[in-house]
């Protein structure tokens, strides 16, 4: 917990200087290819890019602490509201995608582990291999083609009206499955291998010898311990999923942060990219803290002094 803020600070600093090192002048990109050097310089002054780098950094950092994350060069409006208005839809897509991946991956993984070398195991393995190996954008396009264009069951793009409304949820189905399915495959394989390892341990043999039902052995004794590495994976995969959401948001025209930040990177909109990275860093740090707390919940023998 103590390291949370220094970690975010270090990431913010790295991102700040990295953005300045990357070739490309935001003023030149905004002014267009036919701007005179004077026009470009005028914009650089407006954006404060003419000031020494260390001054820019200090001003940005001070603003960050006070909740002023700077202004977007492109929109000329504050970064924080721009990110905040897009965050709910990215969070919704990621959360539902995650839920789908867990809801499909863990039960199938348990089934595969408890029925090793049966048809169930082989089929789930095949599904997992397919899910892991196919690119997410390809899956998204295929799902879009089948379920929207050919069958017409789901909307092709957009996010519908409001948040968590029936219309919004209807629009969410395909993007969430496109995001969640590849991760479901990963959870499936991971659950299977972890559970198999736990099921081979001595305390499971003891539980079985005591005459406990197989269901109690698997779900009460084995799964609890098998969940710890799965929860670790969950913590690691969350930022990856937000990265994956960028692709999904673009294909399905989902109005989240992803496509907005990609444009910002292309346009060298420094403060937007920096703000997003600080945000993402905070999310990763606090997710990992949550994961650590979950360990203790899953296994009460784990304690943090």
């Amino acid at each position, binding site marked *: 917990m103590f390291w949370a803020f220094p970690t975010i600070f270090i990431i913010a600093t790295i991102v700040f200087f990295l953005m300045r090192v990357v*070739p*490309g*002048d935001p003023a*030149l*990109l*905004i*002014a*267009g*290819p*036919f*701007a*005179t*050097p*004077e*026009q*470009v310089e*005028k*914009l650089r002054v*407006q954006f404060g890019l003419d000031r020494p780098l260390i001054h820019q950094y200090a001003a940005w950092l001070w603003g960050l602490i006070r909740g002023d994350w700077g*202004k*977007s060069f*492109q*929109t*000329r*409006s*504050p970064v924080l509201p*721009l990110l905040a*208005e*897009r965050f709910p*839809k990215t969070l919704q897509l990621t959360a539902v995608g995650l839920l789908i991946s867990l809801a499909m991956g863990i039960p199938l993984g348990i089934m595969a582990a408890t029925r090793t070398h049966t048809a169930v195991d082989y089929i789930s393995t095949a599904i997992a291999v397919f899910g892991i190996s196919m690119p997410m954008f390809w899956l998204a*396009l295929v799902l*879009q*083609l089948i379920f*929207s*264009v050919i069958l*017409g069951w789901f909307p*092709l*793009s*957009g*996010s519908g009206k409001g948040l968590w409304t029936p219309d919004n949820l209807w629009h969410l189905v395909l993007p969430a499955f496109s995001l969640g399915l590849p991760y479901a495959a990963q959870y499936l394989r991971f659950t299977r291998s972890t559970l198999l390892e736990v099921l081979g341990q001595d305390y499971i043999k003891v539980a079985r010898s005591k005459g406990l039902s197989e269901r109690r052995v698997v779900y009460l004794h084995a799964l609890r311990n098998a969940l710890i590495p799965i929860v670790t994976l969950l913590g690691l995969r969350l930022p990856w999923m937000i990265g994956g959401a960028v692709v999904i*948001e*673009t*294909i*399905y*025209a*989902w*109005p*989240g942060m992803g*496509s*907005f930040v990609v*444009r910002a990177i*292309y*346009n*060298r909109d420094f403060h937007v990219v920096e703000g997003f990275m600080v945000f993402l860093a905070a999310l990763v740090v606090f997710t990992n803290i949550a994961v650590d707390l979950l360990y203790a919940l899953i296994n009460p023998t784990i304690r943090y002094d």
Partner: protein
Amino acid sequence: MKQRSMKVLGLLAIWLLAAGIMALAQPRSGGRLVWGLYEEPPTLDPVGSTLAVQHMINDHIFEHLCVFDNEGRLQPHLAESWTVSPDGLIWDVKLKKGITFHNGKPVTAADWVYSLNRTREIGPRSGFYEPVDEYIALDDYTLRIKLKRPFPRILEILTLPDAYVVDKETVETMGDRFGVEPPLNGTGPYELKEWVRGEYILLERVDTYNHGPKWRTNQGPAYVQEVQFRILHEDSTRMFELIQGDVDITPFVPFSLYHLAEKAPNIELVERVRNMTYHLAMNAKHEPLNDPMVRWAIAMAIDREPIVKVALKGHGQPAYILCSPSQLGFPHDSYEEVKAYYPPTDPERARMYLKAAGWEDVDGDGVLEKDGKELRLSLWAQTGAEWPLMAQIIQDQLAKVGIATEIISIETGTFYGALAKQGKHDLALGMSGYPFALDFEPFQHHTRSIGGSNYSFYDYELAPTIDRLLDIAQVLPTEDERYGALAEALKFIGMASVYVPIAWPVYPLAWKKDRVGGVDQVIKHAFQTQVDSIPLDCLEYYIKKK
């Protein structure tokens, strides 16, 4: 008697049929038109960006002093008339009375002074307004433009996509939120109703609008009740939405998806030549490109036909001069004469020119040498789309005359900056253009643009003559004289051969012809407005069925 009744009935039936057909052909009022856009504008504040999509939307909401008519002639719009002092330094523009912002507040000369000063001070195109010394409101309806030097094109320049009239009070009240949320309070036929960031921008018709340009079939209000711009970055999604009918009209359909549009029922797809030109730029500061013989040889080695056929999949036109037919100022009358000054495609002559310049294949490896040094050049190109293929074809064509090239791919965002600032390239494949050739040609070819948009670094031989002609073209009193000087400059630009014209790209527009009417009127507009040939004449289109 019976025969007479039949006649009357027949005439009545014909009259009813004719009336029905006429009613069907009449534009209908109401409905929602949905555009599928490939990009979201960062803001709708006119001084916010130079993106074409932003201007496309803004042109529904804001208006200029003057606009171009269907023949490309400048016509007063919110201006009524103007007078110019004998020395050409004072322009007094009479404003139309009765024009109001969407909130009902009358537009006065003070609003124009505020708006045009704002454009000059913080707009990304501020350099264009450099000849302006001061804007003054003489009275409520007279705007005085004081110039530093005679500049007869000033009103033309004031049709640029940021020179709209905005309401000071709205701008100041909205502060940072101006341009990103309603109201925008312009004077045009639409107002911003809603912007769901990343998803769509919704405009609503202003029912009181009544001052559309005279040459339009509709002077307002617009026929369509609501115009929605949906943001669909992914090309295939945009195309499928059009086919499914959730999008009515979309620009920039990629060539790879043409077949979908062509197979789908009721989709019309048209192409228009853009006001851009693909070119091969040469860095005239690098040896041996400082030798005009070598530059001409390179230009002669380029065969445009296979480039258009393969890299652009046939969707473009070979370009023979450095000005697009869609640019205002293209030398339509003297095209063949201007073209004659550009090196023709002739690989055999290219080899002769290289030999005359001292380059020969001494060791028989296919690459020419001079003083023990091989003729190897770097060829810079952008990543993605048509660029790599175009670079490969040019590489192959140059290899046939003994010039070896190494292709260097650079990300689009940094490409032009790297060319201008670093100047490390020998050859570079680029695309550039602007609606006004009179502005574009100095940007690309004048020596004062070196280090900016002129990445040929050519400042010797013919450069002073080109500079002089381009400068004269800016200040000559009549349009004919200005375009005449520009045509002369284009000849010298051709002779200098530091930029080789390659192709004129096309702008594809697809729409549902059973749903949207009036697009034909829109696309026949000869001078396709300031932006990249995107039809903006929103007063004309209408929804056929709701």
